[in-house]
């Protein structure tokens, strides 16, 4: 099992998920009804509404962003350098323990 932690924007809410490897972090969030992950386009990477922020340590460890992901993250309501789209992160041992900080707004 892979541990994924979602922290609400103001830090007041912390949800730990233990999910099976496979599928995306976005799918795991939607299946567990995480507030703050909207995922309007269902993982087709056209909407940007499943973005979250990670620490610089985690950011360095994650696979590289595609051009489209960079583009989408640039145009979210409050862009930051450490954003990722959860639909582009695969649930695997490699991200065990990752902490994802949710944005104030997805759209």
């Amino acid at each position, binding site marked *: 099992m892979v541990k994924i932690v979602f922290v609400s924007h103001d830090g007041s809410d912390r949800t730990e998920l233990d999910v099976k490897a496979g599928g995306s972090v976005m799918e795991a969030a939607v299946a567990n*009804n995480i507030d703050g992950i909207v995922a309007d*386009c*269902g*993982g087709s990477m*056209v*909407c940007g509404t499943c973005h979250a922020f990670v620490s610089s340590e985690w950011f360095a460890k994650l696979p590289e962003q595609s051009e489209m992901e960079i583009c989408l993250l*640039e*145009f979210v309501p409050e*862009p930051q350098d450490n954003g990722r789209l959860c639909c582009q992160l695969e649930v695997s041992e490699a991200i065990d323990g990752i902490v994802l900080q949710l944005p104030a707004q997805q*759209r």
Partner: protein
Amino acid sequence: MTTPIADHIPEHVPQDIVFSYDYHGDPRVTSDVHSSLQSIQNDAPPIFYTPKNGGHWVVSRFDEIKKVVEDYEVFSAKEMQIPRIENPPFFIPLNVDPPNNIPYRQALMPAFSPKSIKILEEKVRHWAATIIDDALAKGDGVDFVREVASVYPVSIFMELMGMPMDRLWEFRNLSEAFFSTNDQEKIHQLSGQIIMTMTEILEEKKANPSDDLMSHILNIKVKGEPISLGEMQNMCFLLFLGGMDTVANVTGYAFRHLSNMPELQKRLSENSADISKFTDEAIRMFGVISNPRIVAKDSNVFGINFKKDDMVLCLLPISGRDDRKNKNAHIFDIDRAKEDSNTLTFSSGPHMCIGSFLARSEIRILVEEWFKRVRKYEVVPGTELGFRMGFSLALTHLPLNFETV
């Protein structure tokens, strides 16, 4: 008038999932279009085949629609006309399947992104305020659809594109004519007229570029190469149609529904912070665009055999009313839980509506400006409301009596 198309059921369709439904005007549908469609959703199998309009599949429930619109390898977006016609309209990037649609999406996305829409908010609010003031000045009986809902999104959209505002009604009429016909000849004639008009404006922009979306479209590069005039025309055509008829009708239906909810009107006028919840709920309940698809290859999906070139209609406007997905799906409740608020009004997958962020803002801001001015309102008693069916559901008029603040 065109000759009605004969009913048709191909051999690969099992009899037990045949259910008659006329996409362009079903006898069971009343002016309460969404409720009528919802009762069809309850009576019919989740995926059925209707013999009407040349015969096609219909998908009416949330999970099944989501799968169809996300699975572009089986259900292609390259053709969307039901019944099928020769040389159907072709939109970029709507009718382009991945991966070829991505560069176009990427080029358009910045203009329609949450960040850009936030910047646009004050302009949107200005249009909302101006248009509502003009409409209210007409007094009781004012037609909300004509004076507010239809003028408002068109005005904002034309401003975003950089279109000349003195052509507002010309555009609106062309769009309305396009969406209300099923006649092949008319569709071709109107498409030609719309594209010609857009080309004129593009040519003007080429000579005098400014900071607007049309000037941006002239500079789009795909794989490093400028796009052709034909591609620009197609793209503008889609944006034009997408911006005209959609928000207008969601807003029309939402205001019609709210007219019967005096307590909610009171709550919204006293708590403007609740208006974004109202907007989300209106979008869940009153989607207007359906998503037709064409089967790209023989496939078995949901245990059903689909044959290449079968047409498949996804009824997005009732996706949020699926009681298998949302609890009390038929009830308008702005306080509903996130897990019961699912909707595919803007579709999903690679062709999800690029204007969804703009649409949400437009509706929210219009309602905010409305309740700054109106305490309560009702539909003029005794009114028979007109409507249209097809690719886009539309409310043709909505006369209101109102009390100002």
